């Protein structure tokens, strides 16, 4: 008969720490190691906290990069606070010097932390399990059982059983020492190193990447060179030659909105049919561009990020000549696409004409003023205020195409002094008072806003993040554990097998069970052991 006696994990405070028995780096080295470990972890902790705190203001204060309009609003609303915020960089937190300082320091600390740990780990990789402590009974899990088997047999079965459980095993004269879970530290290192690569990827993207947008009217096209962008930003190492010479023709664009009672007006479908030409001389290919389905052209991606209306108008001047004809892109102001823009006819003679324009896809006219009540074009209407003035000398200075600069212009007034306001439905044409000319709404088309960009470092960051998550799982779920088995020869009676175990990481379950199981296995006679 064998007797098995299993004990609960022992409390640490009631006696000296069991680790005291284990071989150490020497107490000086140990202390220094502990000290660097401790201080650097503290630093990392504080820097991490600082990072979390520093990221918060950017989510509460409007950010220039995200919505410049709201920053301007904020500045006008808070005339004293605004400039202070501006000085502190609160309108551009994530590019501010203090935010950058925190994450750069963090990554310096990270590298400073990783390098020595790689050295330590490299040694640990070749390390043998620590020698069997003198007193196994002091370990957190301990089982002693009598055995009738020979010592040799027990030790070798123990070694085999532990190897099967993926332990690194050393067999001694009267004991077996085993350790497992080396991958935990490896996972931890892989995780931290991957973080550095994530940052490298981000940096590459910031240096070599570019992003810009361009508004393209249905029926027209975009070709990828700087002049065609409405706005453009690029990293320091980007050159214009990096723009691939492709072009995209927008053949048509389907939009559907919710017409049911729930979420009425919410977008349900955006789909653009486009023709892509990869470069001069290449055969065009047809593609469908949707939200969530960008075009991939070489390393460049083209996203559909917005849309709107462009009323088609014809303006004739006082002499009856066509001074302007075509679609005019208007900027949507609300979810129902009430849009504003400017129609300019600088070539009208004898006086040039210009119109402040308001377009409503589903126009509603009541005492609240004209507005749109649905995003689709169910009842489109164009409203204009008219301006005129002497012809202007072409300066070549760029002008904002969406708003009207009224310097040098006078507003056209009725006889009673009220400004002239003209409302047009599709097909309507109106002669301007005073024989200044005429304006007609021929129809409307849609435009889309394309975002064209490339972020070259992204694959590096994404792969690094994948590796980081795997490393993290190893680091969190691998259970480093040490197990020792010793035979105590009985003077007269049977020998006793002692099994002791020690977990080296928090929150590990099953140590006691494993130790008990091992002890039970070893105290059985070989013929009782089922072959696994």
């Amino acid at each position: 008969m064998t007797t098995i006696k299993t004990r609960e994990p022992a409390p640490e405070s009631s006696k000296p720490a069991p680790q005291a028995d284990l071989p150490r780096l020497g107490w000086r080295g140990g202390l220094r190691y502990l000290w660097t470990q401790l201080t650097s972890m503290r630093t990392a902790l504080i820097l991490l906290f600082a990072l979390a705190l520093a990221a918060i203001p950017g989510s509460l204060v409007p950010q220039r990069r995200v919505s410049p309009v709201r920053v301007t609003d904020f500045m006008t609303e808070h005339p004293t606070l605004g400039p202070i915020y501006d000085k502190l960089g609160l309108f551009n937190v994530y590019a501010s010097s203090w935010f950058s300082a925190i994450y750069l320091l963090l990554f310096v600390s990270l590298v400073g932390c990783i390098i020595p740990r790689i050295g330590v780990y490299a040694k640990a990789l070749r390390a043998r399990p620590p020698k069997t402590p003198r007193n196994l009974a002091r370990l957190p899990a301990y089982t002693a059982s009598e055995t009738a088997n020979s010592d040799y047999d027990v030790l070798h079965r123990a070694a085999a059983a532990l190897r099967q459980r993926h332990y690194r095993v050393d067999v001694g004269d009267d004991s077996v020492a085993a350790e497992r879970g080396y991958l935990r530290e490896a996972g931890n290192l892989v995780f931290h190193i991957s973080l550095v690569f994530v940052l490298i990827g981000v940096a590459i993207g910031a240096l070599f990447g570019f992003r810009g947008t361009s508004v393209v009217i249905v029926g027209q096209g975009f070709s990828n060179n700087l002049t065609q962008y409405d706005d453009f930003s690029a990293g320091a190492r980007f050159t214009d030659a990096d723009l691939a010479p492709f072009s995209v023709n927008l053949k048509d664009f389907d939009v559907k909105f919710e017409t049911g009672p729930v979420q009425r007006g919410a977008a349900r479908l955006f789909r653009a049919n486009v023709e892509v030409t990869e470069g001069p001389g290449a055969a065009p290919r047809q593609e469908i561009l949707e939200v969530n389905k960008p075009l991939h052209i070489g390393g460049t991606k083209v996203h559909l990020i917005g849309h709107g209306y462009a009323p088609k108008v014809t303006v004739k001047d006082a002499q009856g000549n066509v001074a302007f004809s075509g679609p005019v892109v208007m900027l949507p102001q609300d979810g129902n696409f009430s849009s504003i823009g400017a129609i300019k006819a600088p070539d009208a003679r004898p006086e040039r004409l210009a119109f402040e324009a308001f377009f409503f896809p589903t126009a509603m006219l009541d005492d609240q003023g004209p507005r749109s009540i649905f995003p689709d074009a169910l009842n489109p209407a164009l409203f204009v205020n008219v301006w005129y003035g002497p012809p202007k000398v072409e300066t070549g200075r760029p002008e904002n195409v969406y708003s009207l600069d009224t310097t040098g212009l006078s507003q056209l007034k009725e006889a009673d002094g009220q400004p002239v306001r003209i409302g047009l439905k599709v097909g309507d044409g109106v002669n301007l008072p005073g024989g200044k000319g005429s304006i007609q709404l021929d129809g409307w088309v849609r435009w889309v806003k394309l975002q064209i960009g490339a972020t070259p470092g992204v694959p590096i960051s994404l792969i690094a993040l994948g590796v980081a998550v795997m490393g993290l799982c190893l680091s969190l779920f691998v259970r480093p554990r040490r197990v020792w088995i010793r035979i105590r020869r009985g003077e007269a009676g049977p020998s006793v097998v002692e099994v002791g175990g020690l977990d080296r990481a928090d929150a590990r379950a099953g140590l006691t069970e494993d130790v008990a199981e091992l002890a039970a296995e070893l105290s059985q006679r070989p013929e009782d052991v089922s072959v696994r």
Partner: protein
Amino acid sequence: MTYEYYSSLALVSSVVVYALAMFAHAAEWAAARRLGVANPAVRELVDVAAADGRPAPSEMPPERSDTRPDAVEGRGQPDPASDAESSPSSRRRVEQFGRMGVALTVIGFLLSVAGVLTRALAAQRAPWGNMFEFTITAMVFVVGAYLILVWRAGLRWLGLPVTLLAAVGNGLAVTVFYVAVAPLVPALHSVWFLIHIVAAAISGAAFNVGGLMSILYLIKKRAEDRGTVRGYLGRLPDARKIDLIAYRFLAFAFPLWTFTVVAGAIWAEYAWGRYWGWDPKETWALVTWVIYACYLHARSTAGWRGTRAAVIAIIGLASFWFNFIGINLLVSGLHSYAGI
């Protein structure tokens, strides 16, 4: 009658049933107060390698309490203190209230699963398109995880906070967050969005349970330090063990949350053409992530484990909730969910 109607009915009922379960657990604890110092009714979930402040091994019950808590309750080592004050009948009452609480929780769980499934049928898509749907799904994960733990590891002592959370969560969902069924806006038509939301719901559930445990840890630890452990607290496992279980939840949640944020970034690239744009929601997801990274670091830093780590875990939970409710309701951003 439509699926949508049944979904709402099931969810409202689940709120009521969870509230009843919560009262049952409250009654369980109230009854336990009169028991004085009772045995913690838990199975050893975690091996405590270095438990501090616990009685010496010789005073521990000799057998490992491998059985369910209900069984332990009946034949557990008689505790002199509790024996003196309590009669078998009051012990039985505690037990009855406890069982009632778990039974009600199971019913509430089934109702809330039914609510999510009928919602999916009503919408004819995966039910993760808005805050309402996210909340009811996350609550299914929270309560599901809790019930598994009750079944496998006897964690019934978590019943009160979990039913409270579930009642409040589903209650907020059906009142404040409710939106009628509607299809998704085009930006949400993405497999990455689905992955992102499911991962967020699961890791959110684990963060919540871990956070609740960290709160219990702080309460229990305080009582242990003052030597005033009785009634309710006496039935919790010791602080050290609560801490370890909380850690296991958070350690499970952290990699999944990392993945959630990455999946969100990939989805953002498809939907908006950039991986990361410092949108308020993204920013707070990162803040939450960094806080939990602090938690994991704190646990391996001497002087920070235990109480301070628990405080960080609670801050992390607060940040998670702020991101979920505060940002959606207070700050405008690209993530503002349809309808709320």
